[in-house]
């Protein structure tokens, strides 16, 4: 194996270390060592990515708003996140006198840990998962819904009315959007026949079709509900700067605040990664371009979706809580259910016929896109946001 093989698939490095350690230590030491290597690898990816994301967001939003964005620290302001981090570290982390001290301290940790845990199952490339659980996507859903609890902990313990309002909104919103999100994922799971993240990607590569093409409606529902869970602009009612000051983290300052901030970006990154995995073929790419390492493609897709998130943030106004709830229950949930039925029928066809028959996948693509278009238009006419409450 030459150097390029190690770069092309980083799992080879892990294998090399495993081989080396097996000769030296007993089994459980090797196990711990490899786990440590995996954690370090994820952090090596995560920390620079978070910094890059913060920089990208500030620069892009700056351009959207006809201004420069940070451009003083380092070339193109690229060291701005470092300066931010130093500033935040040097700041005093205040605790309000009437706060519930234990819960107040625990909340930033409790929100950051689940955000980090999601990365354990992300397939960065072939064999490149920290833990390729056979219930991978279920694990992601379970872990990411934990953040509702931490947000409520933060809002409740601050003993601040704005925080409490933000926390109440957060719980209502997160619980509502969990439902269409899980239902929209189900379509992909049925097509792939597995909950395992790497298997979902492999299935897309084997069939030579990204699931976005067969699941346009599922993608739309998942994207919207995932963005809602991220509390970014069109749906950031839980921190709604212009209404409830900063929502659940109004009372937080210093490093405790920045943990909330980092958790938001970590989640945004994870959502981009899950979208790429479920709907855009994960590490896969066009045959000509596969000279580049697969993990690079995966990261490129993550950045692409993050740029879309930034774009949305720079454009859209915020929804009100009742409209947001109405949107989840009246719009996304029925569409996700219909998508589920249609996909179920299609999976039967899928299994019935020989996949080698070239007409199946193209016809499914056409049917699904047409159906998605018709359904979205029809549902919009039925339940316009304006009429949802009037």
């Amino acid at each position, binding site marked *: 194996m030459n150097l390029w093989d190690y770069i092309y698939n980083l799992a080879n490095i892990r294998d090399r270390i495993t081989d080396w350690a097996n000769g030296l230590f007993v089994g459980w030491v090797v196990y711990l060592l490899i786990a440590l290597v995996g954690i370090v690898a994820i952090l090596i990816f995560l920390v620079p990515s978070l910094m890059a994301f913060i920089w990208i967001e500030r620069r892009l*939003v700056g351009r959207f708003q*006809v201004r420069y964005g940070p451009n003083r620290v380092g070339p193109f302001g690229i060291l701005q996140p470092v300066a931010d981090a130093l500033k935040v570290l040097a700041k005093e982390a205040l605790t309000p006198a009437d706060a519930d001290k234990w819960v107040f301290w625990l909340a930033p940790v409790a929100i950051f840990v689940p955000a980090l845990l999601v990365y354990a199952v992300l397939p960065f490339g072939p064999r490149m998962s920290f833990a390729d659980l056979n219930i991978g996507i279920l694990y992601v859903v379970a872990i990411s819904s934990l953040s509702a609890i931490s947000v409520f902990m933060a809002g409740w313990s601050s003993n601040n009315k704005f925080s409490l309002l933000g926390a109440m909104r957060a719980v209502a919103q997160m619980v509502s959007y969990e439902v269409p999100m899980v239902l929209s994922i189900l379509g992909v799971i049925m097509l792939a026949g597995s909950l395992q993240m790497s298997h979902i990607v492999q299935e897309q590569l084997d069939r030579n079709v990204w699931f976005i093409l067969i699941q346009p409606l599922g993608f739309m529902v998942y994207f919207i509900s995932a963005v809602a869970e991220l509390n970014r602009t069109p749906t950031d009612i839980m921190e709604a700067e*212009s*209404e409830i000051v900063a929502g659940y983290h109004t009372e937080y300052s210093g490093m405790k605040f920045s943990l909330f901030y980092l958790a938001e970006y970590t989640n945004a990154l994870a959502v981009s990664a899950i979208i790429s995995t479920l709907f855009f073929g994960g590490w896969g790419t066009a045959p000509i371009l596969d000279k580049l390492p697969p993990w690079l493609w995966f990261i490129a897709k993550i950045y692409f979706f993050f740029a879309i998130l930034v774009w949305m*943030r720079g454009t859209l*106004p915020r929804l*009100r809580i009742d409209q947001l709830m109405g949107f989840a229950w009246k719009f996304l949930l029925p569409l996700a259910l219909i998508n589920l039925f249609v996909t179920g029928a299609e999976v039967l066809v899928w299994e019935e016929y020989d996949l080698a028959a070239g007409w199946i996948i193209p016809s499914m693509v056409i049917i699904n896109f047409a159906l998605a278009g018709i359904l979205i238009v029809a549902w919009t006419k039925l339940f316009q*946001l*304006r009429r949802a409450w009037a």
Partner: protein
Amino acid sequence: MSFKTEPLVVNFGPQHPSTHGVFRMIVSLDGEVITDVEPVMGYLHRGVEKLAEERTYLQNIPFTDRLDYLASMSNNLAYVLAVEKLANIPVSPRAQYLRVIMAELQRIASHAMAVGSFLNDAGAFFTPLMYMFREREKVLDLFEMTCGQRLTYNYMRVGGLSHDIPPEFLPALGKFLDDMPGFIDEYEQLLSENEILLARTKGVGILPPQLAINASVSGPILRGSGVKWDLRKADPYCVYDRFDFDIPVGKAGDSYDRFWVRLQEMRQSVRIIQQAVAQLPQGEVRSQVPATLRPQAGEAYAHIEAPKGELGFYLVSDGSVAPYRFKIRSPSFINLTPLREMMVGYKVADAVIILGSLDIVLGEVDR
């Protein structure tokens, strides 16, 4: 099953991102629904009306700059009109036209700020505000060219203006007037058809025309409720009777209509300025006025259609160098009176939108 619940009383302000200064609302909430609003004002009270009684008529002009600090020109204009009425001072035609041009430019700048920050309150992350800042900046550049200032102009004088416009002013103004309608189109396209914005503003904070009249509100808020009342038409001052322009009025009286009326008024202002530039006469801009003005004992009230509504100055003279009484009828303050009627029954998020659609400036509310 019924729970025993308590109303949540939340204090919006004086330090809050969306109260446009140091305004304070004590809001009672039932969950997310507003059950009561109590506005608290006075955090920016500087006693301008009392201070003005100790100073000469000329010295009072800079005070008016600091009332509605987003529309200093309009404040200047209303005050000097009152003094001219009190002392019977003539104003040259050129000064009249330039006053109209300045007041309308100021309206564009002020409405730009109002619309931009209104959309910011609606949750659009600063982008619409920045777009509006960009256009407002061009107006501020024109003002800076004229009087050297960008916020507190102190440009109008009793009997005219402090000085004539510089030669480069009219070409720059022409370019601005050419660009502005296109920009308003772009802006309307960007947000007026946005489903989220419509959902957030349509039917929110409805002010019925009858209540609007009874509460004595004025300006875009009154016109948003569908009442066609504009002092430029109803009681023309300066030379407004020589221009052709429309008064846009809303239909439902909701936040969206107030937003829409402001956008349309910017268009009309462009029309007025174009006509004023075409008709602009030559001549002096300042008539002969004694350095220490001593109007005869008496009283005068002059009002104009400022960007925020009817801005009036009521002056009483006892024949000395300083006004005996200096009363400001500030539109922002009076437009706040129907606040409770507009807010009760809506959600917390709507409170911010409704307040944003009123477009208050605290320098004027508290004086």
